[in-house]
């Protein structure tokens, strides 16, 4: 497609997305973007989906790739904890999709997917039906708010922000911190694993503690963790809390928030009484993005999507691949880097399957950085491969930062470049 033609096409798609609600009410859903050649549809334009779309085109420029995403702008979660305490703004974390279209020839459809029918290889959006040969689904997470008594999905996040999907929620938590009295209590509830970004809540505790020491030194952070212990880089966070944030952070393991008392401004804690706070950061338990369940891709009795460990093809519905936070990827964490790595291996193996070739082996890598203060970071780096049908971590000791945090400042400099590169991968 010539550039001018493509631009016109994109304009048409953009217009279509706005009109559909009116135009299609009551009609049988029409097919949009009729399929002529080999096509892969990618649903979800985050760390997994955007990369899958880009690399499918890089690996096979003859393939038609359509990326369906709700929003025209993407706000990245990694490093958004720094937005909460004013160390960073959203400008550097916000991405568009223009380069995926103009440089890689990915077709963009800004629209909401309402259903997926694996039997007829069809995705249904608000504007119509889109056919595919293979589908890559990267729906991220949704919250299991039904596990929290008294939680109203509409109003509770406005009082007790999760800030676990970056954007307005992040800014709300920032405003609440700023408005809190000195001497106040910040409660952070950590959901039972697995959840998106294992070190995220503990990083948040560090950054908020550092900010409080500067601005409200009599205030305190209380971490209520549903898990028996810190779920990632535990020894390092404990060391940081002891040496960097002494007296500022109280950690309560095996403390599950089972309800909210919005009138009293308190978490209801299973087996204990309620815990009152001035800022209540409630990170609810999580499940695969809602569309995964609607498409029958979630495991029986579970909340995530079982997949083949090389191709990430659903074990429930052939032809549909699930990557990123929503997938059950064995030992790989639900992180942006893991989603990026899975997307590339998935893209190669989608093509291998389409071309009747043997699959590529998985060499999964995850590199996560977590801030322990304003200018210090810690990291974990792991290699994953498939053994006995499961993704396992290569048995290598010493994947995390040194226990005495001696490289914190150096790692802070690397972390910044990590962010630059992984975002540049998605947007250019």
């Amino acid at each position, binding site marked *: 497609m010539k550039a001018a033609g493509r631009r016109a096409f994109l304009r048409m798609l953009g217009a279509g997305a706005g009109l559909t609600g009116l135009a299609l009410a009551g009609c049988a859903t029409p097919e949009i973007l009729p399929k002529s050649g080999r096509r892969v549809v990618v649903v979800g334009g985050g760390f997994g989906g955007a990369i899958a779309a880009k*690399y499918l085109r*890089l*690996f*096979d*420029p003859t393939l038609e790739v359509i990326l369906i995403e709700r929003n025209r702008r993407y706000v990245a979660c990694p490093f958004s904890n720094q937005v909460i305490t004013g160390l960073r703004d959203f400008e550097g974390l916000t991405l568009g999709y223009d380069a995926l279209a103009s*440089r*890689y020839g990915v077709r963009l459809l800004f629209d909401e997917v309402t259903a997926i029918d694996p039997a007829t290889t069809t995705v249904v959006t608000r504007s119509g039906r889109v056919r595919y040969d293979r589908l890559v689904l990267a729906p991220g997470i949704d919250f299991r708010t039904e596990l929290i008594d008294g939680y109203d999905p509409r109003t509770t996040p406005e009082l007790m922000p999760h800030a676990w999907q970056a954007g307005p929620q992040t800014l709300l938590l920032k405003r609440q911190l700023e408005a809190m009295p000195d001497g106040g209590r910040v409660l952070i509830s950590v959901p039972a694993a697995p959840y998106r970004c294992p070190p995220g809540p503990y990083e948040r505790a560090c950054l908020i503690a550092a900010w409080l020491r500067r601005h409200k030194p009599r205030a305190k952070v209380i971490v209520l963790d549903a898990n028996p212990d810190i779920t990632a880089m535990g020894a390092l966070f404990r060391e940081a809390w002891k040496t960097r944030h002494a007296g500022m952070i109280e950690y309560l393991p095996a403390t599950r928030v089972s309800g909210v008392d919005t009138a009293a401004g308190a978490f209801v804690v299973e087996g204990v009484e309620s815990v009152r706070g001035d800022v209540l950061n409630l990170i609810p338990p999580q499940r695969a993005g809602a569309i995964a369940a609607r498409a029958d891709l979630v495991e029986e009795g579970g909340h995530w999507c079982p997949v083949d460990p090389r191709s990430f093809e659903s074990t429930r519905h052939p032809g549909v691949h699930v990557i990123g936070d929503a997938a059950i990827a064995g030992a790989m964490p639900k992180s942006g*880097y893991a989603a*990026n*790595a899975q997307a*590339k*291996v998935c893209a*190669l193996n989608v*093509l291998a399957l389409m071309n009747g070739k043997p699959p*590529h*082996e*998985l*060499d*999964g*890598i995850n*590199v996560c950085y977590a801030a322990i203060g304003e200018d210090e970071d810690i*990291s974990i*780096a*792991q*290699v994953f491969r498939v053994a006995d049908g499961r993704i396992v*971590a*290569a048995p*290598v000791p*010493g*994947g*995390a*930062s040194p226990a005495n945090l001696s*490289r914190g400042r*150096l*790692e802070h*400099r*690397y972390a*910044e*470049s*990590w*962010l*630059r*590169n*992984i975002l*540049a*991968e998605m947007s*250019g």
Partner: protein
Amino acid sequence: MYAVSCRIFLRLFLAVVSLVAALPAPAAGIVPGVVCDGCHGTGGHSAGTTIPSLAGQDRDYFVIAMQAFRSGERPSTVMGPLARGLTDTDIRGMAAYYARQTPLAQTAPVDPALVKAGMKVFYDRCKTCHLDGSLWKLIHQNRGYERECSGRCHLDYGPERGKVVPLIGGQWREYLEMELAAFRDGSRGMSKRKARAFEHLDDADLAAVAAFFASRTELQR
């Protein structure tokens, strides 16, 4: 300004063309290679100034570097554990993947005066070993220099000898400065020969030579 953005655009365009040229038939090392690009940038073109670009890196040097990370001989943060988790086959495959990519120069402006000072440092202290293809060419275009040629480079280093020479031209200045600082403070080990060269260099020289290497736009192994 216009010329600059044109140049950047051209580079990006070439990067894409080279990737597209390199990738359609997934070849050796493709999986570990692309997976590492999450940190090192698509096709090994790093957008982060403290993480090196790997595009076009010498294949043998890549393996040497990974082995040094693995053994701990070269200090690192995440690279040690990653090198220990990857197999020899992975590492050889990645070396091939990155060697296939077209190297691109970093895009930050560098102070011309610093570059000039850095070139002098390069001629005085670095040139007999750090002769990648483009620097070899640069030296031989410098007729004044060639008249005084001691022949030493021809004896031990440089393309004629088939020695392993890392590609460091066009690398981010910040990354180069960090590595030079690590050599200087002893946290990254070096050969006796390199240590001798370092004895004569002060911090200003190191900053200058980092700028010189960062300023290189003609990159070839």
